[in-house]
């Protein structure tokens, strides 16, 4: 791995009033790495992910992207966000725009690209997720899996350096989970740096470079998937994995 990490969380804290959801998280993600974050509900996984592009404002600690602290007051967060793509559990496609309209909105509004240029880039992104033929279709007419792939295209069209996935398959019908995981695997193989919060243990085990186990707002342990799944060191990790794999 190269010297300077792509993303570095240093002592990240987040509290809602007196409720602490992140109690000092330290995490380093290197370029080209795919890191999966697993853990029980309420462990702070999603909060941590949402702090990485400041959809949630951390209450303490630092977020360093390519060597630059993005938590400071003078940071142009809108510029930073274009380099950090995000995919949500509920897809969050814009229902009033076509698939292509969803993918090209930021190209046109933020980057000021012409309709033709944005359209060409948007089509290329839709092609990457296998949905070039759905460009003119509205989200309401797409299956959950297709909607999530459009959401991935919407993020990658901006050519981000880092992609955040917040339980991308949790809202999907079982039969469409596979197509989304396939799109994510292809993205990973193209060299994208990815931080993925997921409940898909099989996917984490087989596709991740590193697995993070979180509980109680902190990272309990991390390591290569075969270690975390094969020989977890901590009792809490073991308990979680037993519970999960017994009925997954």
């Amino acid at each position, binding site marked *: 791995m190269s010297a300077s990490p792509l993303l570095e969380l240093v002592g990240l804290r987040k509290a809602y009033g007196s409720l602490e959801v992140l109690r000092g998280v330290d995490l380093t993600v290197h370029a080209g790495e795919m890191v999966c974050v697993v853990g029980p509900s309420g462990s702070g996984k999603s909060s941590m992910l949402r702090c990485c*592009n400041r*959809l949630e404002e951390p209450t303490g600690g630092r977020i360093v992207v390519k060597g630059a602290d993005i938590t400071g007051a003078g940071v142009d967060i*809108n*510029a930073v*966000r*274009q380099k*950090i*793509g*995000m995919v*949500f559990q*509920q897809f*969050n*496609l*814009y*229902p*009033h725009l076509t698939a292509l309209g969803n993918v090209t*909105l*930021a190209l046109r*509004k*933020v980057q000021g690209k012409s309709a033709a240029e944005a359209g060409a880039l948007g089509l290329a992104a839709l092609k990457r997720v296998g949905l070039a033929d759905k460009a003119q279709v*509205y989200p*309401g007419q797409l299956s959950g899996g297709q909607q999530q792939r459009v*959401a991935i295209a*919407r*993020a990658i069209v*901006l050519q981000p350096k880092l992609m955040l996935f917040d339980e991308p398959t949790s809202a999907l019908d079982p039969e469409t989970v596979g197509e989304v995981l396939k799109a994510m695997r292809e993205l990973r193989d193209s060299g994208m740096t990815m931080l993925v919060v997921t409940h898909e243990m099989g996917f984490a085990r087989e596709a991740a470079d590193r697995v993070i186990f979180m509980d109680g707002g902190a990272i309990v342990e991390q390591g290569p998937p075969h270690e975390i799944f094969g020989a977890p060191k901590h009792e809490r990790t073991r308990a979680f994995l037993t519970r999960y794999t017994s009925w997954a």
Partner: protein
Amino acid sequence: MDGFARLLDTFFNAEVAARYWPEILAGVWITIGVGIAVTVTGLTIGLGLAILRAKQWAWLAVPIVAFADIMRALPPLIVIIVFFFAFPLIGISMSAFTATWLSLSLVLAAYAEESLWGAILSLPRGQSEAARSTGLTWWQTMSAVILPQALRLALPPLTNRVIAVSKNVALGSVVALSEVLNNAQSATSTAGNPTPLTMAAAAYLAIFIPAMVLARRMENRMQWRV
């Protein structure tokens, strides 16, 4: 003269109608003009207030909510009377047209703000999060993602309210705005026959039925995609 002939002679008197139709027609143009002016300014102000309220600045939300509640609670007639008869006492005089237009615009703005704000609130939070995560600013998110959906959701209550408030142009008759109803009333007293009122009723139908058809068409057209 039997009852039916008397009814015709009283409410559908051709001779009276022939004599007074130019005045009714003149009133129709005023009603349509004020109605359109109220719709444009009322919706614009209402939209502006809903956007400002979405900024979630407490110091601004309180006066906006107060304005919307007061304007919806007061009968529009009282608002018109205050503008026309009370404001001159503090040095602000206005024509019957201005008083009616301004009053009804503010009433419509209050209702429009509430409908649009409700629609904005009903949208999933993920919509703005998705937009912001791609680098759109607050305003870009509002204009390209939130408002197009909110306007569509709010369209049925908005069109209803536009029609209800425009119909209240008739209240301008209390400040002698020469709209349909006012002209019909004076014609009725001059003629000693209420046929001009029948004509006014027909004029209202002629103005508002097409407006309702247009509103329904807009609602249907906006609905098919979502």
